[in-house]
């Protein structure tokens, strides 16, 4: 077995996947070749760390740090919410409301006073004003007639009565 073959089957040897013949050849090469022996030793030593892992010991201020982190996060969330509310919600809403108000005012100014508008609407749909006009038409007539004409009419009536 040469060095290349040896290196190719180290993993199989460690995984106990070699047959007895290969295992024998492997052991022979391991004894002969110092370079391969060193590689095998290093690999084996590294694998031994799997069974003896280093553990991080208890941390004295762990909870204090955790609490600080939670408080920081809460503050960040709060400021984030504040930013979202003001910049993404309130500000656009304010802009939208002012645009709507400006458009409404523009329409009002463009279409005249609210009263005339009201009259024009009534004139199209409501006919009650015609009856009202009919009821008071005489008042209008009296207004149209001059006072002198009324007096002349009264004098004529009086003279006919005397006769």
């Amino acid at each position, binding site marked *: 077995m040469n060095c290349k073959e040896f*290196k190719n089957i*180290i*993993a199989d040897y*460690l*995984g106990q996947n070699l047959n007895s013949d290969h295992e024998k050849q492997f052991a022979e090469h391991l004894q002969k070749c110092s370079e391969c022996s060193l*590689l095998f030793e*290093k*690999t084996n*030593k*590294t*694998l*031994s*760390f*799997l*069974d003896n*892992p*280093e*553990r*991080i*010991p*208890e*941390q004295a201020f*762990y*909870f204090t*740090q*955790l609490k600080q*982190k*939670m408080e920081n*996060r809460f503050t960040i969330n709060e400021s984030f919410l504040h930013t979202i509310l003001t910049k993404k919600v309130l500000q656009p809403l304010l802009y939208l409301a002012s645009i709507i108000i400006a458009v409404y005012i523009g329409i009002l100014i463009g279409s005249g006073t609210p009263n005339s508008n009201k009259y024009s609407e009534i004139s199209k749909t409501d006919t009650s004003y015609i009856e009202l006009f009919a009821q008071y038409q005489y008042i209008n007539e009296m207004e149209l007639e001059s006072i002198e004409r009324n007096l002349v009419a009264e004098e004529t009536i009086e003279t006919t009565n005397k006769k």
Partner: protein
Amino acid sequence: MSDQELLEKIAKKDEQAFRIFVEKYHILVLNVCNNILNNYDDSMDISQEVFIKIYESIDNFRGESKISTWLYRIAINKSLNHLRSKKRQKWFSSLDSVFGDDSKKQDIKDSSLNIGEQIDLNENKVALQTSISKLPDKQKTAITLNSFEELSYKEISEVMEISVTEVGVLINRAKKNLYKLILDYYKKN
């Protein structure tokens, strides 16, 4: 105070109960994170994230499994997610360097590739950490829980929510790959 009582009190946002819970379990969570991340600062950060998640979503714990199983699961998921996001950052950082934008270059810590740390640490330990970090996520989780946390196949199956047979297969594959990766490490160095 039993774990169940502690959890009930934490659900009511009792800070004292949460403190007791954290002091009881932080070594477990911290070490699980460290076994996957191989970086003390990252492990501290992620383990704290685990406890914050527990504090915020304690109602989701149905009590069907052991608390330790639940903690292992959250710690592993958080650590693996952290590793993935680190990989993404590294990818984007390399893109930045390709396009010559040095200002966006980020100092991404990668314990398996940090030369300074490698010099300080024992070579064997570094070889092992580097090799484990190259394993696929499931194999990495299985071998970490089995070798470092000394969990049984049944316990690992509960944490990973897979069958005991699958755990065995994963650990065998992980060991085979690990032998090859360690050899490759020494061949290259």
